[in-house]
């Protein structure tokens, strides 16, 4: 393809390797990396949540604030939120075609994920240090 003399792609475009969306394969690759990380992290997260069912506030505080659990949650939460932000971005790009609606939806997605991610991380840090 790159040696096709009739190609209209410029030499610079071939070197940059970003394609027509100007974003290359970063999105797909980050989706794979976060997916891989989330396999063990999700299993550990489910373990933590199940172990806390029916427990009183003091026990939940102590468990979530325990360094081992807190570090696990601090790995799981941003990885999961980043993964879901990427996933929702794909869904929006697939189904929302109006330029304004798409831009607004993509922004709302980022804001939602930022709020959820920061709120969860703040809660874990507060449970750990206060």
């Amino acid at each position: 393809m790159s040696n096709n003399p009739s190609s209209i792609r410029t030499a610079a475009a071939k070197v940059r390797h970003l394609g027509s969306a100007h974003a290359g394969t970063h999105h797909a690759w980050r989706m794979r990396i976060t997916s891989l990380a989330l396999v063990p992290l999700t299993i550990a997260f489910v373990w933590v949540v199940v172990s806390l069912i029916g427990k009183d506030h003091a026990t939940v505080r102590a468990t979530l604030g325990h360094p081992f659990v807190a570090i696990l949650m601090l790995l799981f939460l941003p990885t999961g939120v980043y993964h879901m932000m990427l996933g929702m971005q794909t869904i929006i790009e697939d189904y929302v075609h109006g330029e304004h609606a798409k831009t607004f939806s993509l922004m709302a997605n980022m804001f939602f994920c930022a709020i959820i991610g920061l709120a969860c991380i703040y809660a874990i840090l507060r449970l750990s240090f206060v």
Partner: protein
Amino acid sequence: MVNTDQSPAAREARRPMSPHLQVYRFALTMAMSIAHRITGVGLYAGTLLLAWWLVAAATDAASFANVSWFMGTIIGRLVLFGFTWALFHHLLGGLRHFVWDLGYGMDHPEREYLAQGTLIGAIVLTVVVWIIAYVVS
């Protein structure tokens, strides 16, 4: 009879269309594909509950009592059950994508087995986790 109407609407109607959902015979793999996306959206919305739980735990006993009360209601339990299932369905669906990424499981019998395994595996894991949850609590 060739329609020679050159109005934009008529031209739009004659435009060649690519085949879409309605022309294909139902297959489990297509249902699993959309289920992967729908469970992803469900998990996305479900993070609101996760954030509520964590922030309430970090705030005070009264806030935590509120979230604990909601999770204990029938609706709360149904939502959590659905969240658990969506989590496992999406997790196993992701593993299925890894198998494909490595170049395996795309041919006829294998892809059906993968789809069935994901579907059944997610239900089994969900039920097992909820049995464990009821036993430990």
